[in-house]
């Protein structure tokens, strides 16, 4: 007879091992579609590795790709730690990007030292505002934030498209639905010449360190963890549950907004409706793979960015579809969810004792 029994305490090895093992299994499972595509497995993975580690430039591409993922991963991590299911990072990212172009494309002609913080501040605030709506609906009326944040994504994206056809449209764009470019002095500086890595990465890394510290060492982080682990006990112990949820909602939204700022003001320079290939949703995978640890988010964002960049280069070299990357990312989420189950429970099998049934 097979039974599922909870483990007394998941070991440290388990909490670290499960995400790593999940990533490896996801990569191995990716062999199956590769075989169907008729590719040679060894060369395919070699191409992937070369796309990531092959040159300084290719590795900086990974860093560039990881930057928005760190932001959205942190946005998911903090919210999820409080059991606030913010699925709306994608929408909040676009709100942040939109705010960045709203103030950064000529509305204020300020020197860079002022304009850059202004763009960042506005972007973060816009993202926070985007998450404030579902948070108020949840704390006041009990509306399920999974539904509201998810659906807001589509509303925001359509709003962005409308703005790109209207108020924010670049008159010089020859009809393309895109915004005016951010003023040069408002752009986040490049970190390495002739690469695309920009100062957004520094902000993202700082955010991860601060988030880690605040979670572990601040009263705010204590309250947030208590609310997430047991809201009833937290309330009984005098913690303002709704206040905690509101504050983490705003910070989560702000982080997602920063992802948009960093993409617009660090990389693209202007806003289009296809700014994000789902960074908001991938951020959820990043957070889960990181076991909801802010520092872990940096590592898992780098892994997922490598998969994307590597798959891109593999598909260019071998003619295999780069959708493989999405496959690996989603499979690693599935693996980490299944792995999480095994970290918490164990399967025991016992031999049934035979007795004559009366």
């Amino acid at each position, binding site marked *: 007879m097979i039974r599922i029994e909870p483990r*007394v305490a998941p070991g440290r090895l388990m909490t670290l091992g499960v995400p790593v093992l999940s990533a490896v299994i996801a990569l191995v499972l990716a062999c199956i579609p590769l075989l169907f595509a008729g590719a040679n497995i060894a060369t395919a993975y070699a191409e992937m590795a070369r796309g990531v580690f092959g040159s300084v430039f290719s590795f900086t591409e990974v860093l560039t790709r990881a930057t928005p993922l760190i932001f959205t991963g942190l946005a998911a991590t903090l919210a999820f730690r409080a059991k606030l299911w913010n699925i709306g990072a994608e929408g909040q990212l676009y709100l942040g990007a939109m705010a960045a172009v709203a103030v950064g494309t000529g509305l204020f002609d300020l020197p860079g030292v002022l304009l850059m913080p202004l763009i960042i501040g506005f972007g973060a605030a816009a993202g926070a505002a985007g998450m404030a709506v579902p948070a108020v609906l949840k704390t006041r009326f009990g509306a399920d934030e999974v539904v509201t944040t998810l659906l807001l994504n589509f509303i925001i994206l359509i709003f962005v498209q409308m703005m790109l056809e209207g108020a924010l449209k670049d008159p010089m764009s020859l009809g393309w639905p895109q915004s005016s470019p951010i003023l040069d002095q408002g752009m986040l500086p490049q970190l390495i010449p002739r690469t695309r890595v920009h100062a957004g990465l520094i902000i993202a890394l700082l955010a991860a360190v601060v988030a880690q510290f605040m979670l572990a*060492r601040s009263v705010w982080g204590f309250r947030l963890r208590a609310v997430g*682990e047991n809201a009833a*006990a937290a309330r009984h112990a*005098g913690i*303002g549950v709704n206040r905690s949820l509101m504050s983490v909602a705003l910070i989560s939204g702000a982080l997602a907004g920063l992802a948009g700022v960093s993409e617009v003001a660090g990389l693209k320079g202007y806003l289009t409706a296809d700014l994000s290939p789902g960074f908001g949703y991938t951020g959820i995978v990043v957070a889960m793979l990181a076991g909801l640890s802010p520092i872990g988010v940096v590592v898992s964002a780098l892994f997922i960015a490598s998969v994307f960049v590597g798959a891109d280069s593999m598909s260019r070299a071998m003619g295999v579809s780069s959708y493989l990357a999405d496959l690996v990312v989603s499979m690693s989420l599935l693996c980490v969810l299944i792995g999480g189950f095994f970290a918490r429970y164990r399967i025991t099998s016992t031999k*049934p*004792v*035979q007795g004559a049934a*009366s």
Partner: protein
Amino acid sequence: MTQQKILSLNRLSKQFGTVVANDAVDLDLHKGEVLALLGENGAGKTTLMNMLFGHYLPDSGSIDVAGEDGVMQPLALGHPQAALRAGIGMVHQHFTLAENLSALDNILLGSEKLKSLRRDRARLRARVEGIMARSGLTAPLDELVGKLSVGERQRVEILKALFRDARILVLDEPTAVLTPQEADTLFENIGMMTKDGLSVIFISHKLREVLAFSSRIAVLRHGVKVGEMATSDADQKAIARMMVGADTPEASREIIAPGAPVLKMKGVSLKGQSDRDTLTDVSLTVHANEIVGIAGVSGNGQSALAAALSGMRHPDSGTITVEGVDVTRAEPLAMIRAHVGRIPEDRHHDGMVGAMSVAENMVIERLWDDEFQSRGFLKNEAIASHAERLSKAYDVRGPGIEAKAQLLSGGNIQKLILARVFEQNPRLILANQPVRGLDMGAAEEVRRRLLEARDGGAGVMLISEDLDEILGLADRILVIHSGEVHEIMTRDRSQIGLMMAGEPA
């Protein structure tokens, strides 16, 4: 009484991880006998019965049950269906009834085909009524179970087992949810049923009822059967010693004069989602140096009373003051700062954050205190030394202060909560079922601490469903029934029991 053996458990053992729940337990049951299975929480009573009923598979050992012909046959282990077929019926502490079906449907469901449920309804009903007449168990068959009282639901559960031709009935703590009178009726009915040939095992930790109603007693401690005797030969002290393994000093209560009022509730009404969590026009006072016991059957407004005093819910009308400060609409934090110490009923759900450390759970009510934080950052050294000190002072045993609180045993979790509450020198202590589920040692510790706090000048409100508990501790007794609280002057068990059932004094 015939001494025909009907069931024998042979050297049953069961281990969970490193915990030995049952170690080679032998137990026999004879026809028409009422066997009381006594033991502290965690002694292995429920595990043993779950193995009998096929919920758990024993690691070793066997079970023999007498068939219809009286010949002992081995029972297939780990199969509830086999246990049912062999005539073993179990009534769990938490009932397994469908609230939206009638009592009759609940009895019939599962043992009859759906088709015959409609076609042969009259015949089946007659059979159930026959069982009711023979056993003395009565229940309104056509009423929805959701509308029945707890006692009636329990009778429906027993009828369900009898309808399935149970010859052995296992009752897990059957009186935990009953008034003393209801409990007496239940045991009378059990008496009638055993005359009819039924054999009963009932699990309990209440010595009084065990001595009054069983014919034989078996005592478990730490998974081992430590004693077995005919009830007529039993001695209360000796059994208690067997259960605990040593004499426990009983908390002795001196009579002291109450001081000034600490808590005043005036005309407090609180409408809940059901009658079970409603308060109606409650006025009461708790003084310093006084333990006020709130006696009542579970689900009569105790949770609403506790919620109002914890700051978890707010009254619709009336006022609550603690030492003259109005706390009618106070949130939990304001209650804490008004020096109200709260020991919640459900310590796992409301009392601690299991995934956080012991040390964190010890300061969770005092995050605002400069002792543990400065400018919004935690003082980890202060938190750790505070936890070390409290663990020692309150004897909280576990894997250490950095370990997750959920790794502590129930008794140690309660000690953690006691430490957190008493450390703040509360003026009013709300203790809601503070010893429920604790072993005797931990329960005694809780009682001692409550008395100590009372002697130190605090007012204590003790909410308990265990009348003996209240009689042992309370200086003054109030009875709660249907959300109304009445003061009583008597300390007479049966008188209080009547009031708990809603009869006027």
